[in-house]
């Protein structure tokens, strides 16, 4: 059964040095508050899995938390490079970063295989391209019925999955809607999981029967962390902070400016900074465009 905890306690209990960690959220609901807590607790030697590393892994990698990244698209969406991740790959700063690279389709399938308890995923992909030459985990299988050659990748089975969701109810069930990405798959594929949420409600009330719900017995820890997805967004709560994504390009470009920013905004602060951002960006305050 899920337990309500503080952010610090949830990370303390569920994320260990050397863990394979998946923090998911496809542009929407990226668990940034939890990412900051992992940095504050100075976790080391993590393998970080994420379809799009985004700012959250740029920060973790730049702060030396990761030995390895597993990813499909490592850019700052619509802006440019993830400078900290590039610095780690190109120059080994602050430490060398091993990486295993896939396509989005491969990782989506691999999460699904993990959730389904299968050892690998099979799909039509990677034809005529170079990734299989540099990633030995990309292999092929011959369909026993048609003879078609199909791509395979190992299932993703993280030690811990971390997601940000919209709401939890008092019984500890977790709800998300909108762009739901691979969060459900990541949680069901993982041994342990943390869900940070915008708010706790007594009861979810009226909802579509097809709303994505993670029942309490599938989640280890729930943390009420309003604004916890900032600078990504939470459907119905606040919008994506596109200006912040653009600003990150400047902050992260140089090591010094990055470290100074992390000190002032992460190491010396707590989850309250996210609540402040939510207040600034919430639909009621800003007025929906």
């Amino acid at each position, binding site marked *: 059964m899920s337990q309500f905890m503080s952010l610090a306690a949830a990370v303390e209990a569920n994320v260990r040095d050397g863990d394979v960690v998946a923090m998911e959220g496809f542009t929407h609901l990226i668990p940034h508050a939890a990412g900051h807590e992992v940095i504050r607790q100075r976790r080391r030697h993590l393998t970080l899995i994420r379809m799009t590393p985004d700012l959250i892994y740029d920060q973790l990698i730049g702060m030396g938390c990761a030995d390895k990244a597993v990813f499909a698209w490592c850019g700052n969406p619509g802006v440019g*490079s993830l400078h900290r991740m590039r610095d780690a790959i*190109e120059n080994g700063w602050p430490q060398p970063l091993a990486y295993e*690279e896939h*396509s989005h*389709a491969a990782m*989506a399938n691999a999460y699904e295989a993990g959730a389904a308890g299968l050892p690998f995923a099979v799909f039509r992909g990677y034809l005529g*391209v*170079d990734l299989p030459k540099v990633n030995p985990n990309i292999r092929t299988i011959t369909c026993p019925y048609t003879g078609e050659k199909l791509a395979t990748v190992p299932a993703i089975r993280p030690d811990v999955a971390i997601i940000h969701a919209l709401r939890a109810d008092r019984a500890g069930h977790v709800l998300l809607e909108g762009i739901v990405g691979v969060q459900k798959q990541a949680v069901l594929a993982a041994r342990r999981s943390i869900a940070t949420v915008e708010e706790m409600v007594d009861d979810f009330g009226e909802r579509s029967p097809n709303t994505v719900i993670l029942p309490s017995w599938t989640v280890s820890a729930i943390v009420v962390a309003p604004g916890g997805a900032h600078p990504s967004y939470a459907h119905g709560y606040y919008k994506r902070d596109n*200006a912040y994504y653009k600003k990150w390009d400047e902050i992260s470009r140089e090591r010094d400016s990055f470290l100074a920013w992390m000190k002032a905004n992460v190491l010396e602060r707590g989850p309250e900074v996210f609540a402040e951002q939510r207040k600034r*960006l919430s639909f009621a305050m800003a007025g929906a465009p």
Partner: protein
Amino acid sequence: MTESFTPTEMMTVAASRALKSSDVCFVGIGMPSAACNLARLTHAPDITLIYESGTIATKPAILPLSIGDGELCETALATVSVPEMFRYWLQGGRITVGFLGGAQIDRYANLNTTVVGPYDKPKVRLPGGGGAPEIAISCGEIFIIMSHSRRGFVEKLDFVTSLGHGEGRDHRARLGIKTKGPTRLITDLCVFEPDPVTKEMTVVSIHPGVSREQIDSNTGWEVKYAAEPTATPTPTAEELAILRELHARTKRAHGDQA
């Protein structure tokens, strides 16, 4: 008297005209997104735009900065999970056109968005493939939009991220791929289509005011031209007005949170 326009505007307009109202289009971010939404706001109002974040038949009023901006979900007919998007909709063969961009392209429209230099010791680490490797083989056909430069249009790719026509001719078919691959490459100078036999990308249309010399000097291989390349029709005043208004709206929306 025609209105003046930038090469990028010409490119976006030419790309948008390649789309039909009946298309179901998988949209890449950046220049593809502008072209696809311009098509929707002009001659192809019923086009179905799909972003890999899972949003189906989305009608954003502003251009998203990412492929998963809230705007895409709020204006979509439906939003599905990312595994469903890639398995049922893309791999399942429900998409007629994939619209891609890239950092490097070769004469057979293979694309590199992974690395410049060797993979293990890259000179420049680019974002990588994302959805492109499977978009390139599972969509009915592929349109590519890219600014024309010698740095981007290269004799040999450093890395093949997504397949175009491979080594040419029937390479795709030999790999067991049934889709057409890149049927159009739109740049800020011209439009290429694959030669029916060799599949080498061939200039079929040249934008107004552009010379062959300009195309040649911005391409890293010896460019093939169709027997009689046509002149790309200039953007209409309506197309330009709608495109500029779209960009202005987008700028206001993205800037207002600073």
